[in-house]
């Protein structure tokens, strides 16, 4: 089996890029990643993006980005899996390299959210839910998630304020991260006093709206131009029913758990080998359900572990090491690629103030819908 090495990486700051288009952001990140890898012409381009057709009236992203990078002739396509689009773009690139079809693949995750009016952005973020039975009735993904949050709190006797531990961790880690959208620490009181969005979820429970692009160059051993310092040990994905309330167990993120099991088996690792994790902390409750599905916490105990410091930057399993979706920001289809770039920095010792000590193995978790799509990557330091 071929190895998949990370040859180069780049990202833009997440936030309000009023002066930059979807294409501007994608080209900026893609061009910088190719330079970082020392590769002029990749064999393939894969773009992770959720709703460019809705936000920017632009599809055919593969061709327009290849053309803009003066890479006409390079095969290029877009991969979409709602919020997991970025990770699924990496998953496709990983397969292309392992199959031997390409020795180098440029993966770009990009999303442009701020060109939309706020209510259109709510709709865009809800496009992964049913058009006929959710969107038609004006029900947003956040509202769906709020219902699950109520049930989760009730089932495990967790209070509203207890959930706030996750955004507090995320914001703390975002403070020193130059590319993060919100570099401001928050308290549990800040969360409970923030604007109600869809109770019990408040503004500071929810990942923000922002623009951004991130890119990595993945290579086989034959494709590298310099000795790579990190590799993708496993890339796995799974799915579950679109509606969380149709599942046998609403409190089990089964797609995540299945993707995790596949990834660990492929890499020949156990969860105890993981040094840090970038999790899909799009909502406080989703963060809790995610650490539980990933096996870092027992069922219903994610919040308790977080309160005890298990997930802090210097804890047993640091999570969201640059702020996660909540603090770094969540340019939706780009987020999975941001996670890869951030893990690459951890593994190569270039994470600065966000550095996790002795980081050798990282786990990345990206989710579409309310765990209807999930992808897990395991990255390791090489050598």
């Amino acid at each position: 089996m071929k190895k998949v090495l990370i040859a180069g990486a780049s990202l833009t700051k997440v936030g309000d890029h009023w002066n930059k288009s979807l294409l501007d952001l994608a080209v900026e990140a893609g061009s910088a990643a190719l330079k970082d890898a020392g590769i002029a012409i990749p064999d393939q381009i894969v773009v992770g993006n959720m709703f460019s057709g809705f936000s920017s009236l632009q599809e055919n992203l593969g061709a327009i980005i290849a053309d803009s990078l003066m890479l006409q002739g390079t095969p290029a396509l877009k991969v979409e899996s709602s919020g997991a689009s970025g990770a699924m773009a990496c998953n496709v690139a990983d397969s292309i390299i392992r199959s031997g079809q390409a020795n180098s693949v440029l993966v770009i995750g990009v999303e442009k959210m701020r060109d939309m009016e706020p209510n259109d952005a709510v709709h865009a973020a809800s496009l992964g839910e049913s058009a006929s039975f959710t969107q038609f009735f004006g029900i947003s993904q956040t509202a769906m998630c709020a219902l699950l949050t109520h049930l989760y709190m009730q089932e495990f006797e967790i209070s509203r304020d207890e959930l706030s531990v996750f955004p507090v961790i995320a914001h703390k880690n975002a403070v020193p991260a130059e590319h993060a959208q919100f570099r401001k620490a928050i308290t549990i009181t800040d969360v409970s006093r923030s604007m109600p969005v869809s109770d019990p979820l408040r503004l500071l429970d929810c990942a923000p709206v922002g623009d951004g692009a991130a890119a990595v160059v993945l290579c086989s051993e034959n494709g590298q131009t310099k000795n790579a310092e990190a590799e993708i040990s496993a890339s796995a994905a799974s799915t579950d029913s679109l509606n969380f309330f149709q599942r046998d167990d609403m409190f089990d993120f089964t797609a995540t758990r299945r993707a995790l099991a596949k990834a660990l088996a492929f890499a020949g690792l156990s969860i105890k080998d993981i040094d840090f994790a970038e999790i899909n902390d799009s909502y406080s409750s989703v963060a809790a359900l995610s650490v539980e599905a990933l096996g870092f916490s027992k069922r219903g105990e994610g919040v308790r572990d977080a309160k005890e410091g298990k997930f802090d930057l210097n804890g047993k399993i640091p999570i969201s090491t640059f702020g996660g979706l909540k603090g770094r920001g969540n340019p939706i289809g780009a987020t999975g690629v941001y996670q890869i770039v951030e893990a690459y920095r951890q593994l190569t010792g270039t994470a600065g103030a966000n550095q996790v000590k002795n980081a050798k193995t990282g786990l990345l978790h990206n989710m579409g819908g309310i765990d209807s799509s999930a992808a897990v990557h395991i990255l390791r330091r090489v050598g």
Partner: protein
Amino acid sequence: MSIAYWRERNRYYRILGSKCKECSAEFFPPVYKCRKCNSEKLAEQEMPKEGKVMAYTLSRDIITGFEDQEPMIIGLIELQNGVKMVAQIADASADQLAVGDKVKAVFRRVSVNGEAGQIFYGYKFVKIDK
């Protein structure tokens, strides 16, 4: 939107879902294969119109076209046949509602298409007074 709305009208007007001819399991929204036994032998089945509230939220997270309904109460409802569905709860304020409340389906205006002025109708739920 208009054609899709016309195609789905019986789903919206009558809460028309599916029933498995093999194992009798019922589903809404309708399914292509039975989610219990995997059978493709399915019949159309109207859902019961009463149920109880499992959870509800007062949502200010509003999609374009629903601005005039902000804030909306969205509920997770368990129908009398055990089918769970998410729908708007109308004619109530959040402080008048509680988990376990009995609700019934009603036929209401869902939204108005801005440009054409076409009105879309469908199910919502209201509390049953005792």
